[in-house]
């Protein structure tokens, strides 16, 4: 069903796969860039309907640096390049129009943010200036102006954001607003007048305090489709773009409820990672179309799954960086043409973790004769990390990489590597740091070589899932777990991947204790802890201590082969980092062969 055409308004879309709107950070000086064009075109091969990231309808709305200035006529050439590239694949493309209202910053506009009432947003925390009637008239005209420009630019229609982060959403949701839908209806009327028969849709979000079904019914006769989401970008982003701990399709109930209430097509969204999940939703009659954002970022042709790690998509955009993807190193770099291949060469890849697998798959796909040598299990530390609670989807990364290797003809070997091959890629990984003889490493827990019981101290120097996921594993086994970090926050980077809220809920339920600003200086019969802001030293006893410490590169082979032409090292044996870095290293070395 996913591949059957659908009717939206007076248009027909060739399939029911939607690449839904999401921030990319690709705009240059506020204009759509060549990077945008290549990125959307790549997904238009699969998605019948592409919806771009939001375009600002008014210059006073500039909440983040790289926002598309829809109000600026200079966007037109970019619009045309983008729409032509999507149309070349027979797909339709809509522009999402938005004004973020008070969910915004004055940093770039250098003018106060504006909103329905003088109530600050919980994230940006700036008190807005209340909009006047004249402001609202200006806004309606601004939406219409940008819609007209979208028509000129070749878009097949527009979507109005009335969810996540928008003035239209704030009017529906904020306390103290008298007329909740008046502006939305005026905007719809004005935009419709510009669009004629082109597609006009609205994205609605489920959130507390908004009767989304009533809004949907009100909009039914005025729109061609409704898209959906859950959560608010500036207070519950972890619901909008949840991580691996949230199951695929978690938000489909919203689409199903709206579809039952209205007669226009409805788009379901919510961490769909594979086309089969979309098929199921359609078959069950819960939606008419299925949105994939991260799913198509990771696998533009569903060739690999998004695992919801959120490291390089959500994590980077949250830091004002252009979007990437941990498992798809080409995401956001579609413009870079592949290097011309050198002659077919014999390539030995030593090590079957993510770096080695990626290098082998890409090198083999480029026609080289690749042998990958791994004496233990394929997947390296990723396979191990997938053993932790809620992290099983990391196993999909390994699964997909192995499948890519096999499809490309990589030979797998568990014996001695041929180090005389023309190209030798060392991806030998890293091993746990043994700083204290009396402590074990998170990897020892995950591979079962130790099973601590009783009271356990987990030492977090990595600031990510290593400590927190193993702490959860041990707490579930009945251990009394404490995580200690020298940093200000346990699992600091969980905030970037939107894992913090879930971790804190689970940790609370499991009774995991979190201690910050504290160095572990010695582990013996007892543990010495130093609270560095005060210098206070404590000696405590635990039944076991588990370290999540920066590991040490396993670089003995490099020591032997250093300086020889055709020898490269990638991944953790170069510098121990995370999955995204390993995969990027693997891709980079292979595309240059």
């Amino acid at each position, binding site marked *: 069903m996913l591949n059957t055409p659908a009717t939206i308004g007076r248009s027909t879309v060739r399939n029911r796969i939607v690449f839904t709107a999401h921030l990319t950070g690709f705009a240059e000086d506020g204009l759509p860039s060549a990077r945008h064009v290549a990125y959307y075109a790549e997904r238009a091969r699969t998605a019948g309907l592409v919806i771009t990231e939001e375009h600002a309808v008014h210059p006073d709305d500039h909440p983040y640096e790289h926002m598309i200035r829809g109000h600026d006529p200079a966007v037109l050439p970019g619009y045309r390049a983008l729409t032509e590239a999507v149309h070349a694949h027979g797909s339709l493309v809509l522009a999402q129009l938005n004004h973020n209202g008070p969910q915004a910053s004055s940093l770039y506009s250098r003018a106060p943010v504006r909103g329905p009432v003088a109530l600050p947003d919980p994230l940006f925390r700036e008190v807005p200036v209340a909009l006047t009637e004249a402001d609202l008239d200006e806004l309606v005209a601004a939406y219409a102006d940008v819609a007209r420009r979208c028509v000129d630019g070749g878009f097949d229609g527009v979507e109005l954001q009335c969810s996540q982060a928008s003035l239209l959403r704030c009017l529906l949701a904020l306390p103290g607003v008298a007329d909740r839908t008046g502006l939305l209806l005026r905007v719809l009327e004005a935009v419709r007048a510009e669009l004629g028969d082109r597609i006009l849709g609205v994205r609605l979000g489920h959130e507390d305090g908004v009767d989304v079904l009533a809004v949907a019914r009100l909009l039914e006769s005025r729109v061609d489709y409704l898209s959906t989401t859950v959560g608010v970008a500036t207070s519950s982003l972890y619901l909008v773009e949840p991580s691996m701990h949230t199951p695929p399709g978690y938000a489909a109930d919203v689409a199903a409820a709206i579809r039952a209430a209205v007669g226009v097509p409805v788009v379901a969204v919510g961490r769909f990672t594979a086309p089969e999940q979309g098929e199921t939703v359609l078959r069950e009659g819960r939606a008419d179309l299925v949105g994939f954002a991260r799913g198509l970022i990771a696998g533009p042709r569903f060739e690999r799954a998004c695992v919801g790690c959120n490291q390089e998509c959500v994590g980077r955009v949250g830091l004002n960086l252009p979007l990437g993807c941990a498992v798809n190193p080409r995401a956001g770099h579609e413009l870079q043409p592949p290097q011309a291949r050198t002659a077919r060469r014999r390539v030995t890849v030593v090590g079957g973790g993510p770096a080695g697998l990626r290098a082998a798959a890409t090198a083999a796909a480029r026609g080289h004769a690749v042998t990958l040598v791994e004496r233990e299990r394929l997947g390296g530390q990723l396979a191990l990390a997938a053993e932790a609670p809620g992290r099983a989807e990391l196993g999909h990364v390994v699964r997909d990489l192995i499948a890519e290797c096999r499809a490309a003809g990589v030979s797998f070997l568990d014996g001695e590597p041929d180090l005389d091959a023309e190209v030798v890629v060392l991806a030998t990984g890293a091993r746990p740091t043994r700083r204290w003889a009396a402590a074990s490493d998170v990897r020892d827990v995950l591979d079962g070589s130790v099973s601590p019981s009783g009271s356990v101290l987990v030492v977090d120097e990595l600031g990510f899932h290593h400590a927190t996921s193993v702490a959860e594993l041990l707490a579930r086994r009945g251990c009394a777990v404490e995580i200690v970090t020298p940093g200000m926050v346990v699992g600091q980077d969980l905030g970037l991947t939107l894992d*913090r809220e879930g971790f804190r809920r689970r940790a609370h339920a499991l009774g995991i204790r979190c201690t910050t*600003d504290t160095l572990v200086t010695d582990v013996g019969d007892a543990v010495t802890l130093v609270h560095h802001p*005060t210098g206070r030293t404590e000696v405590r006893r635990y039944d076991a201590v588990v370290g999540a410490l920066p590991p040490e590169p396993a670089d003995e082979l490099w020591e032997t082969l250093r300086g020889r032409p055709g020898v490269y090292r990638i991944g953790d044996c170069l510098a121990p*980092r995370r999955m995204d870095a390993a995969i990027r290293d693997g891709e980079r070395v292979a595309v240059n062969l």
Partner: protein
Amino acid sequence: MLGEAVRVGSRIAPSRVLFGPHVTNLGRGRSFSERHRAYYAARAEGGCGVIVCETASVHPSDRPYERAPEPGWAAVAGSCGPALLLASLGHSGSQGTSAFTGRALWGASRIPDVVSREVPQVVEQPEIDALVAGFAAAAARAVADGLDGVELNAGQHSLLRQFLSGLTNTRTDAYGEDRTLLLRQVLAAVRAAVGDAVVGLRLCVDELAPWAGLTPEQLLPLTPKLRDLVDYLVPVRGSGLSVSATRPDLHTPPGFNRALAGTFLGRGLDVVLQGSVVDPGMAEAAVAEGFALVEMTRAQIADPRLVAHVRAGTPERIRPCTLANQHRARDPRNPLITDEAEPRSGHETLDPPLPHAPRPRTGPPLLVVGGGPAGLEAARTAALLGRPVRLLERADRLGGMLRVAAALPARGRFGLLVHWWARELERLGVEVQLGVEAGPADLVGDVLLATGSVPSAPAFEVGAGVRVSSAAEAAGAYGPGDRVVVHDPIGDWTGVAVAEQVAAAGVPCALVTPDAVAGTQLSRTGDLADANARLERAGVERVLFARVRAVGGGRAVVEDVHHGAIRELPATLVIDCAHRLPDLRLAGHPRIGDCLAPRTVHEAVRDARRAVGC
């Protein structure tokens, strides 16, 4: 003395004041831009002697922030008249980020930076050779582009420091046996590349970590070797372990490096005093003590005409620098460099200049209601533009919220701005009436409303048995026997400072924040870690990830923002540091500052200038 010319190497600088290298985000991508040009030119025009450009990365492996410049100075060359214009050259090493390059960071040893936790790749001889060549090539390029020389960055954020320091260099090769080897190789290569052009060295001489880090005692023996290679030395302090040490905020006293840098005087090297020097008197004294130059970077961001005022004998007219660090550009959002009270800084190509001297008084009269920063700046700029101005302030003193802020611990420098504005208004002949509450009848002719803000109603339930005060009204609201809960849903400096003040009075205090740390927005000023440590040491309990739900009966009920667990804190007084709301009591005329939307001094000044048409 400060305004006198001085020899720097083979060149002559027109004054002894140096504008140090700092992140501006003024680039076009990674290139120096016309915005940089205007920014540096404004300081040169104001009398600055030596201008050191934003540090450029000498090798593609280094891109510490999005607009970190690459070598290539044509856009700024020739912009600074008689002032010396130098290129700063550096490599951030393990203190950079892999976010832009997608590649492992370079490090002397495999020691992750404390902040980013990124484990670097240990550079081997080919990378070291490329690094040395990169420094030399960039230096040659700077001189070829028309600059007067270069300054090498071996300061707090640099790979050269990481090689020098026992904290970050545990190598066993020649670069570990002699940790100064790389620096000396780089200096020799750079000197060979630039001939007699100026070579300066910014060198960390104290990492504030004496157990393994750099100390002045370690570095003093290096000075004879530096004599032939460098024309001046800027001793600075700080390492990856002391993030705020080099350009700390107003919690650190101005001129904090004087004793440290002084140990390098009298060794045949021209020494530059760096470190929150903002007062010309202190700078003059430093010159008298033997410093060749004085770095006054933030002081000249606040007032580009600092040296001109010193020369004219009007130092009292220099706009004070607050040292609050609230407008640093090193921030993932890429803000442009600017100043708390001088928003044109960093926006020289966007905002029109104000006249230096008042225009003849011919314009229509203006009434300004309110003597906080917005009203003061509106009165000042309108008077400069030639308008007769009357300012009404209902309190008996000028300053508005600035006075409240200045009364908080360590924030006294905000009060300097009030005094400066008062002096300027007097000089410009503004008629200031204190203790006058303007009524609707006063609002005749051209009027600007700058009446400030009022507290918002508490977002929590308030029952009997607990007093609630806003942050602005909290001074004196507590005493012995009180238990204070500071409710801080905003996370700027206010809640932290209020809690410190309560604790300093010996009153038990807890700070409740929805965030993972207290004062989360202080990451932008560099004070975040220090602020949390100060609260710890002061005995303030930080109740994180929480918000106040209800108060009453001697308790505050707080709820975890994620899992909803409820906790009760003893409380007799809750100080609510939530946002304030515009004071809307007067209407019918344009609003500026907090009575438009409560924000900071910076926005108040912006509003004021826009309202008077500049």
